[in-house]
């Protein structure tokens, strides 16, 4: 099962490497990882997506909590939540492909944010599934480059992750 873990940790040098190191050291898998400071500059927030059976995810959560720099951990997938990922895709955009890419981007509510006579860069925001669907919708022969930020997530409603 796929899980989205939100981690609040001290914004200290080396703190991120402890989190990342934990995953490789214990053979846990990381699918995506995003990190940035929060409104409180002494805290960073990491969102990690990982897949594993419940027992493994339970261990991951416990091991994260055990790190001295980690203030809090929640598994967003345990409750209602919103997840978003941003993607930028560069396409060869000449001839008929130019229209095709534009049309598909519109359907997915993406934007073309860079144009040259031969290329487009499409920006798309959504769930990871939606981004995957966009990638599948277009002919890969035109594809030059993809960059995805990884997932950020937040709980719906009153629930918060804070100190």
């Amino acid at each position, binding site marked *: 099962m796929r899980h989205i873990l939100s981690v609040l940790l*001290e914004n200290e040098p080396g703190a991120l490497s*402890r989190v990342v190191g934990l995953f490789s050291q214990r053979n846990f898998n990381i699918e995506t990882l995003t990190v940035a400071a929060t409104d409180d500059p002494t805290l960073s927030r990491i969102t990690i997506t990982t897949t594993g059976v419940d*027992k493994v995810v339970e*261990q991951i959560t*416990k*091991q994260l*909590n*055990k790190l*001295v720099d980690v*203030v809090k951990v929640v598994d967003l997938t345990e409750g209602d939540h919103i997840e978003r990922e941003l993607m930028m895709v560069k396409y060869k955009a000449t001839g008929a492909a130019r229209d095709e890419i534009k049309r598909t981007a519109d359907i997915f509510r993406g934007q073309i944010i860079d144009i040259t006579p031969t290329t487009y860069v499409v920006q798309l925001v959504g769930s990871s599934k939606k981004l995957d669907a966009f990638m599948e919708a277009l002919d890969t022969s035109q594809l030059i480059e993809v960059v995805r930020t990884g997932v950020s997530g937040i709980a719906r409603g009153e629930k918060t992750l804070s100190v």
Partner: protein
Amino acid sequence: MELLSGAEMLIRALHDQGITKIYGYPGGSVLHIYDALFQQQDIQHILVRHEQAATHMADAYARATGKAGVALVTSGPGATNAITGIATAYCDSIPMVVITGQVPSHLIGEDAFQETDMIGISRPIVKHSFSVKHPSEIPGIVKKAFHIAESGRPGPVVIDVPKDMTNPTDKFEYVFPKTVKMRSYNPVTKGHSGQIKKAFDLLINAKRPIIYAGGGVIIGRACDELVELAKTLNYPVTNTLMGLGGYPGTDRQSVGMLGMHGSYEANMTMHHSDMIFAVGVRFDDRVTNGLEKFCPTAKIVHIDIDPTSISKNIRADVPIVGPAKAVLQEFLKLLKASKVKPDTEAHKAWWHQIDDWRTRHGGRFLTDDSELMKPQQVIQMLSKVTNGDAYVCSDVGQHQMFAAQYYKFNKPNRWINSGGLGTMGFGFPAAMGIKVNFPDADVACVTGEGSIQMNIQELSTCSQYDIPVKIICLNNGSLGMVRQWQDMNYESRHSHSYMESLPDFVKLVEAYGHVGMRVEKYADLEGAMREAFAMKDRLVFMDIIVDPKEHVYPMQIPRGAMRDMLLSKTERT
């Protein structure tokens, strides 16, 4: 207001933390610190001959006292030499503070002379680490380092100190914080009362109970509570390798150590139990044997301070996260107030069964007609000569297992061994670390001719500081534990398990100014050993020639259940 340099702050903070001895080795990055050490009397520094030994000395002090030991090493090779010692402490949850020099801040990342990324290298084997960014942070970092090392599930903490942080001319105000508060680190102080009640029901209603107690009971200073609980209930107790001494080894209710080389009765009792009361243990693979076949009829209560240890290998029916002492005290309260009484009829039958197992094997070893001494006999003699009261610091190998099986520890904190990492070379420096802190105690290093050579250079440190430990070397002329596995699994192809060209240990230790003895016959053993221990102020190396063909039994059969054991070269369960 008092102005101190970073180096002076470091020493002062250690002193304010209550430290009187540190173990270390100088080098370029820590020269300011060594100069500050030279100019004070509060802290004694013991100069080892290899940084690994410094870490093991600090570690052994912690194992005996529960307080963090301190090692000081230079950057680069000094720091990397300390790695094995840090990992050893980490694997056994031992509090330790390791101060490593680092190249000056402006050179970090430049591949400077003797630069290694110590924070990076040590990351997976420390509880936490700090890098000093400003000299004035030093007292606060020291305070936090000890707090983290000693509280919760203890472990080693590294403080990496760039040389410019200790510059003698840069002085700042020294303030040693009285308390530590960290929003991200709050170890649990008590167990969940609902869980404890649930567990108590299982405990009191068990028909075939066993208490499985580990190193957490010793580290958590919960031995008295454990003994009271076990005694009141009349339940059998088994100890892990790390837990030996946590329950008195000569007590009738002790069934000895469990696991791979555990006693027949301990492993049988575990396997057939209907309730395992596990405290301060982690269901290590050297204990459980095959996980699928583990104790099929037992309900499991698991108490540990570290939630990651619970249900990691074996799912607990009732998990309790908390310190052993506080949690066991809750159990004692419930026991006193309980209307339900233990089922003494059922327990009578259970004890009958256990005693049967005991007489069937009962820690026996084979003595054949050969003139050769059996290693087990040597340990039994050591137990006799020291009245079971010595600090026994072991190396790693067959001799370690024999020591664990045959030395009957009645007190906690006396059995000092590298259980988790299994570090050959640990025993001798560990014995030194104990002896310098407990000068009146009998301190024995039980070792093999293989292990002792991994830190034998420390004979020199012992001459310098007069550290009169007794080295009991079970010399079987081979890397015995390796040889045993080769006998069992590789048709006795003894690939590189022989120690050819062994030194004459007697002459070797004499060259360092110590006393050497060679013992070849059992008839001479007792006299020689008594003589060795009577020489209170001399280091004595007893080179004891033992049967090279002896194997450690019982030995669990890989991937079997706890009860599946080889009992000798020809018998199995």
